């Protein structure tokens, strides 16, 4: 690479770096403008609503991961073992959530589940169930690809036959043979799901759920410094989730993610 070219590439990199770091620095600086300097953070940590909404979103995220794993891992396993011809269909369905933006998905869900006999939106519990189900839908593309990649790295057929010849039934095979072997791959999908759920706004607000992102959006009316601290903590959560993923998936390709909490 000749010298003027290399200077050009450095310039491209620097422009990108400045663009990406300025908003982070701006948020950090703003969060520290309160008096005393860390008040934004201490106030936030003392804010009951922060704790309750963050806890709520975290719990919803965990429920999403459990249900999504229970749904996707057996499905991906079964497709690899017995139904390779169903793969295009399953892959297509798991990619559909990209095609239905969150605001459209929640529109469809509310129209379907707001009337008897399936009046889920009528109660808090029902709405939370619907929220978790919507997030499981959002997680399908990541979870399926994560599980499928994990299954591709092991000999599913040999493991299953070995377990069967030792007398294992399907639940044992799935829980004690397959799941431990795809744990790392599934965990990377799970952390991505958690990061997306904690930041998700659109579905949560239309289902009127006490989630973290709607709380953060309105916090500025009370205390903008607290809000800046909250935004930074939210970024921090995403960082942590993604760092764990890259540590888990060292050597494997970075997965593409679209359709999260835009």
């Amino acid at each position, binding site marked *: 690479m000749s010298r003027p070219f290399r200077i050009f590439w450095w310039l491209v990199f620097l422009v990108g770096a400045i663009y990406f770091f300025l908003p982070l620095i701006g*948020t950090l600086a703003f969060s520290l403008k309160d008096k005393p300097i860390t008040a934004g953070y201490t106030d936030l940590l003392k804010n009951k609503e922060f704790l309750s909404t963050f806890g709520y979103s975290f719990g919803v995220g965990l429920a999403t991961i459990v249900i999504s794993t229970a749904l996707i891992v057996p499905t991906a396993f079964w497709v690899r073992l017995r139904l390779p011809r169903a793969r295009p269909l399953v892959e297509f369905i798991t990619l559909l959530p990209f095609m239905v933006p969150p605001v459209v998905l929640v529109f469809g869900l509310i129209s379907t589940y707001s009337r008897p006999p399936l009046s889920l939106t009528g109660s808090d519990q029902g709405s939370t169930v619907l929220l978790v189900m919507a997030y499981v839908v959002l997680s399908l593309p990541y979870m399926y690809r994560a599980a499928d990649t994990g299954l591709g790295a092991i000999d599913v057929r040999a493991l299953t036959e070995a377990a069967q010849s030792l007398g294992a039934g399907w639940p044992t095979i799935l829980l004690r043979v397959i799941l431990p072997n795809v744990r790392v791959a599934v965990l990377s999908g799970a952390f991505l799901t958690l990061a997306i759920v904690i930041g998700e706004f659109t579905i949560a607000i239309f289902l009127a759920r006490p989630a973290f992102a709607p709380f953060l959006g309105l916090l500025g009316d009370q205390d903008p410094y607290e809000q800046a601290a909250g935004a930074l903590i939210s970024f921090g959560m*995403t960082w942590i989730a993604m760092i764990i993923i890259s540590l888990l998936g060292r050597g494997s390709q970075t997965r593409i993610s679209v359709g999260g909490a835009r």
Partner: protein
Amino acid sequence: MSHTADPLDARAAQRAQSGRSRRLLPWLGLVPFLAFTAAFLLVPSVKLIVGSFQDAAGHFTLANYSDFGSKIVINAYQTSIEISLVTAIGAGVFGFLLAYAVISGGLPKPIRSAVLTFSGVASNFAGIPLALAFIFTIGRVGLLTVALKGLGIDPYKAGFNLYSKIGLELVYFYFQLPLMILVIAPAIDGLKREWREAAENLGASSIEFWRRVALPILMPSILGSVMLLFGNAFGAQATAYQLTGGLINLVTLLVGDKLSGDVLHEPGKGFALAVGMIAIMAIALAGYAILQRRAERWRRA
């Protein structure tokens, strides 16, 4: 596949009366997955589509789509498409340059992995916190705005406004650029050194190599990625909601208005708007899938 050595298939064969039930039996394993996606993805989507062709009494009608002739709907689709196009093409071009810079531009190796890791993170920075970060930085009292004012430059007097179309585009770049880097990096990685050497041995200049070898190979990947980016911006709602409070007329915000407003009384028009969005997303993503398949031809060898 050998079916004979398989205990499950053997059992299935015993139970099966005919060849057909033997073939259908494995599909039972997909029932939970199909039932879930039907209940929470397919039925709600179909309900929107069917509902968009029904009036309040449930009779067939096309009247809901008459809204597509109204100024506010046309304007919303125009604005959404414009913002998605501008950010997709802009991030497509700059993201490609950035990816090329760190992969083949002769920058130190650690920068490459740092940029790729950061892209994985930043493509997930979106929604409320992202809008807030820009407000704190280049909003009316943001860090950068104040700093620039100190230097005698007031961006808001110079025509910039974060809470406008340009501002929203600036914010969208934050999740568009990293996505571009992530999807285009494998294609740039796949450009083989031998191709450049072969072109040089045949007397091609650097420009000729790019114009006649590299760009034709990369073009399907680049165009496909731009379509993916278009869909990525088109479906975004939270960022714009937080940033402009609904001042900008986007389709996602309009659908949201219908949803919180008259969903139970006159839902048909909202359904029609949502179906229009699904159609545009489907076109963008189908384009991405087709171009991606074309692009992969070069990577198999």
